[in-house]
């Protein structure tokens, strides 16, 4: 379950990160600017992935343990993504 969870949360946070122009331009090399439409799509997708992952943890572990697990995994995944974004940008 944890493996699937990490994949879902990663998908969610990657979409949300890309929905911010700062990180979109880091990844896509300033060639494309983030359009309003694309931003909404990415935000919607990101939130959906995160909501799905939260639903999964709660359905497997119950509400208390589910929210706890989800928060912990979200912290880990977002930390890794934040660090990767910094060091990818350097290249």
């Amino acid at each position: 379950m944890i493996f699937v969870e990490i994949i879902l949360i990663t998908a969610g946070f990657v979409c949300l990160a890309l929905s911010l122009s700062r990180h979109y331009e880091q990844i896509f090399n300033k060639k494309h600017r983030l359009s309003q439409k694309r931003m909404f799509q990415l935000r919607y997708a990101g939130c959906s992935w995160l909501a799905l992952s939260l639903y999964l943890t709660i359905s497997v572990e119950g509400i208390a343990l589910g929210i706890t697990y989800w928060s912990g995994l979200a912290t880990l995944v977002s930390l890794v993504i934040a660090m990767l974004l910094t060091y990818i940008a350097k290249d």
Partner: protein
Amino acid sequence: MKNSFRQSMNWLHTWSGFVFAWLLYFIFVTGTLGYFEDEIDRWLKPEMTPVAQQIDNREILINAEQHLTQVADNSPSWYISYPANRSPFVNISWLQLADPANNIDKEWREKNIDLNTNQVVDVRDTAGGMTLYRLHYNLHYIPSTIAYIIVSLATMFMLIGLITGVIIHKKIFIEFFTFRANKGLRSWLDIHNIMSVLPLPFHLMITYSGLLLLMSVSMIGVINSNFGAGKDDSKKFYKLATAEHSEQQQTLIKPQDLSADTVLLDAQARYPTQNISYIGVLKRTTDDVHYEVWFDNHQGIELVSHLTYHQHEGQIVVDISGEKVGEAAQIYDLLEHLHEGLFADIYLRWLYFLSGLMGCAMIATGCIIWLNKRLKNANPNKLFDRTYTLARLNIAVVVGLPIALAVFFYSNRLLPIEMANRAQWEMHSLFISLGLGLIICLFHPNKHLWRNSLWLCALSFLILPLVNFLTTGHNLFSSFLQQDWQMLAFDLTMLATGAASAWAALALGQKANLSQTGVNS
């Protein structure tokens, strides 16, 4: 009076953080270690033998009771602990009665039983993982009530710091993933933000639940005004507040057959899927002997935590503990369990640990930001310039505390086994190291202090597994082969901590120079 709300909150965030920063760092570091209390305890008691294979509960019971009869026949309370997930040992413990004539205190004693030889093992006298984690609310050397008041106050300021932090962080979503490296103060602010915002659910939970756990100290006025201020009055409050639903059921045990063995069989029959963690024999010196059976917390959130068997009106009955009666007590329980994380499996436990470490980094980077903003206007040529002195003392705390912890672990291996008050001296060595660190940093020149401290920290942790091997024979290979996972994990974590510190020393090596314009500017 500041011009805007946000400016006021900024002021409040800076100064509420400042007041208890170092104490909160101490609390967070020792508290975070507490999530691995059992594992640290195992390392601190290398003589214990972990149980790797399947065991027969009844056989262990017979053997344990024999040992207890030999050493603790006049004790009113016995406990036999079974191998549990994080504590794979068989231990016996008993309440030793006071004997003023022979200078013996009333205290709990514990011994480990080696299943290979069925003998009691002589374990070194150590402060243990429990004392280490309790530092985070008991502090040390001061009466516990005063410690609770100080920690409670610090926690309140922490909560203010968290909430004002969220308020003043205008771009909290936009900068969620942002870390701009090599940009001096901006970089430190980014890291401080990441360490605060990403684990925000944990920080809010741990701070609020921490306040709740100390509520009988901070909200003493409420208890006193409702129940009275005497000791009996507070006991009355405690009994009412912690009242549990308890279901009493008949058992088929005959009164003359009541023993730990029959109780064990009955408990296993009722809950065949649950692992038993403790069996207790209480009120042994009376006619009304009570038997307790406790279940391993790790087996999910099951309302039954323990059973109590005793005689009632000629029959043997079992009291099955349920949840608390009061709704407020149930909420307290929920937050207490979240805070302590005893229910967590190994993955969630590491996530708790990670969030705790990020909290330590949050506080440390907050200190560094406060200092860096003021070092610009300080005089680098004067050793005891106010800001530079604080900056050096900051290093003594931020890097000095991990070093002091390493010293504590070294003392466990290096102090003579037969030394009097050995456990107290392990703790003394932690605080002596901390004190020495403060004094050394006070007089050390600004230049290279970060680098030197980080290298000292790296070396202390990297060499520890070697000292473990030289003094006890335990090493990475033998731990792996014997499936001694706690020992292995501890040694590996020490190496990882040392490596992280070495990386920091190298990364900061070229840039950090306190005598120029502060750290990393």
